[in-house]
């Protein structure tokens, strides 16, 4: 046995000792957990963290009825890093914990789709506050539900709005992610049907230098530039387009709905034809029940909620209600995962703060709200005061 071999061995022993520090704590008695998965780190953590906070706030405020049954509910937040591999590994960790009865989550559809395969195979119910890709529900899983609208509708909403603004020519750009490209494809299709001329359809992973991409955009001087993707790219693109003399209108999707957009774009978003975005998540102030939510959120986290925080609150509320119903049906015992999944679908007209929800047979809400919002101020702190120019209630396509 050489010293070398030996020091390896002792290193391993030392490593296992350190691990002892973080051994997992066992769950006791009738306590259950509800997990969240959202990007808590990375570019999209601004929104991901608030998804977790929304769920946390709901758990704190609404777990009373469950506690009356003697069931204690805890939050188990996971960071999917907006990465499918991490999401799947987390999902396996989640389903292997029998105390977890529901999962609120995912911000990115690209992460939700593979992760929910894991939830589906172990019967764990997933309620999504933000995933808009059609494929999330069209797979027809009992366990997968969402409370927001769909990309195929949102793309159409965007294209119809553009038509109502008299747009004749449009240049479509997307961010080469499952989300951005998905929505852009639907926008393009509907725009062409609406008689608009699509000058170009380009994807880009670039985050900074849009010069090359902007040449054909600015040369065509379209009435509208559409971006399918997230604010941190869209705002940079819009700013650079203005700098190159583009005067027309910008339109984007709910990924644009982040105060970062105003921070990056500043005044360029209001100049010229202005900037609009379609979203499935109106500012919290438009929903009937949100005044209290806004106040409580502000009090607890000392920040205004980002988009989807209110939706996450509702997802948690639905989970708690479903668990409560299932528990009551099972003699006040902790219900099985299957019972919870069925209880979610069985809910009728659940009154949340962002709407009244009944799920259809594939897990879409029977009717979803879509908004088109105009950026009003260059000041990031006034982002939530942006003006709603159009509100639509549309049933999901079958």
């Amino acid at each position: 046995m050489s010293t070398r071999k030996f020091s390896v061995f002792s290193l391993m022993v030392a490593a296992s000792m350190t691990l002892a520090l973080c051994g997992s704590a066992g769950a006791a008695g009738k306590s259950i957990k509800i997990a969240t998965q959202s990007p808590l780190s990375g570019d999209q953590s601004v929104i991901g963290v608030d998804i977790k906070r929304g769920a946390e706030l709901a758990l704190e405020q609404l777990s009373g009825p469950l506690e009356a049954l003697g069931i204690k509910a805890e939050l188990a937040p996971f960071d999917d890093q907006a990465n499918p591999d991490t999401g799947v590994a987390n999902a396996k960790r989640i389903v292997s914990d029998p105390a977890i009865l529901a999962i609120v989550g995912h911000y990115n559809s690209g992460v939700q789709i593979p992760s929910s395969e894991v939830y589906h195979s172990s019967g764990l119910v997933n309620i999504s506050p933000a995933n808009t890709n059609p494929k999330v529900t069209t797979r027809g899983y009992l366990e997968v539900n969402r409370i927001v609208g769909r990309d195929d509708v949102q793309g159409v909403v965007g294209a119809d709005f553009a038509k109502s603004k008299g747009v004749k020519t449009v240049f479509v750009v997307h961010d080469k992610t499952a989300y951005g490209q998905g929505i852009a494809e639907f926008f393009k299709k509907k725009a062409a049907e609406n008689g608009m001329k699509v000058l170009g359809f380009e994807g880009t992973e670039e985050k900074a230098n849009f010069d090359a991409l902007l040449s054909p955009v600015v040369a065509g001087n379209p009435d509208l530039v559409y971006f399918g993707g997230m604010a941190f790219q869209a705002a940079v693109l819009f700013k650079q387009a203005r700098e190159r003399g583009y005067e027309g209108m910008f339109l984007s999707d709910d990924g644009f709905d982040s105060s970062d957009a105003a921070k990056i774009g500043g005044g360029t978003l209001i100049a010229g034809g202005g900037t609009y975005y379609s979203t499935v998540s109106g500012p919290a102030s438009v929903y009937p029940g949100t005044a209290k939510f806004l106040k409580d959120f502000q009090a607890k986290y000392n920040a205004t909620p980002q988009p989807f925080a209110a939706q996450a609150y509702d997802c948690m509320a639905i989970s708690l209600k479903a668990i409560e119903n299932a528990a009551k049906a099972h003699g006040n015992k902790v219900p099985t995962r299957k019972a919870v999944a069925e209880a979610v679908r069985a809910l009728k007209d659940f009154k949340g703060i962002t709407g009244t929800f009944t799920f259809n047979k594939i897990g879409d809400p029977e009717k979803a709200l879509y908004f088109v919002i105009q950026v009003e101020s260059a000041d990031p702190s006034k982002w939530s005061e942006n003006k709603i120019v159009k509100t639509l209630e549309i049933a999901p396509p079958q």
Partner: protein
Amino acid sequence: MIRFLKRINVYELVRPVGQMVLFSLGSAAFMSAIAISLALALDGTAVGASLMDKYNVSLYTYTMLNLPQVIIDGLTIGFVYAAIALGYTMVYGVLEFINFAHSEIFAVGAFVGVELLIALDGMGILAGASLGMAYAYLILAIILGMMAAGGLAVAVERVAYRPLRGASRLVPLISAIGVSFLLQDVIRLVESLTSGQFNRIMPTFGNFDSRIVFGKIAMGTSKLTLGISVKSIIVIGSAVLMLVGLNYLVNATRVGKAIRAVAQDRPTASLMGINVNRIISLTFLVGGLLGGAAGVLYALKFTRIDPFVGFFPGLKAFTAAVLGGIGNMTGALLGGIVLGMLETFAGSYMGVFTMGAAGSEYKDIFAFSILILVLIFRPQGLMGKHVMQKA
């Protein structure tokens, strides 16, 4: 005063400027020729028809009218690449070693500069600053970014490369890759802990965002605005200044002579009384200074930075250095300009020439293909002399 002026080697000041003009014009002419001939060839085909349908203009006219803007964009990014490429090429010239972490040194420069400006903005100083003061603050940010990046480069060399000198070639390279990854997350950690988020946005101030318009050209039904933004001029101007300064340092001063001596033959240089370790540190310092300045300029031009911002520009700059002939300073300049042009031309015209089948998303592939092709067919680069590998 006169004596001082006499000692300035005017030739070494004029020569690099001449080279830059020559390279810029040359590569612009070359790329334009390719674009125009492609346009002429494709004009009669479906490509031309599809463009006519969308833009109401022939492919040839479209290509011609867009040329000036594309050339300006290509030059701007080309000079940024050149400034970063010099960092790679100087280190390679002296140590025959690819400083993989140079891209993160660039990123650190960008972060330090932007953080300073954000702090100033937070204190309300930037908003009310006069034009002169705005430039002064920008210069301050650039200098601070340079100092941080230069210091970091020297520290990295001392800690992670010097102990490995003399080991086989791959050992320091792997260490450099490690440093690169380490630094990315260190930036992220520091930024997240101090500011809560790690992507930072360059504050808007001064007149950098405004645009000097040369004129409008009618094209089909629309009008093209030809112009250049103030910040592009600043980027090109500062890069030219730095490149001239570096050229002067290396080719016309005593220190430069020492650097060249160490690059040529390290043992002999040390016999001549040159402190080799100090010269190597100095090389890293100079490379870091340039990288840091390029970082702040990059942030100014493109607004948003994150801890991984260095990766692609770094890789492209390395490509530029190889393209021009690694270890050769003029080569890095040429490589940077050519690569910037090539990439911008490809990104701007590919979508139109291929009817949208392959758009600007392939521009990175262009850079890498060039790298692979150059290394296969002319490994010494455009300007390099053929050298046998040292065994």
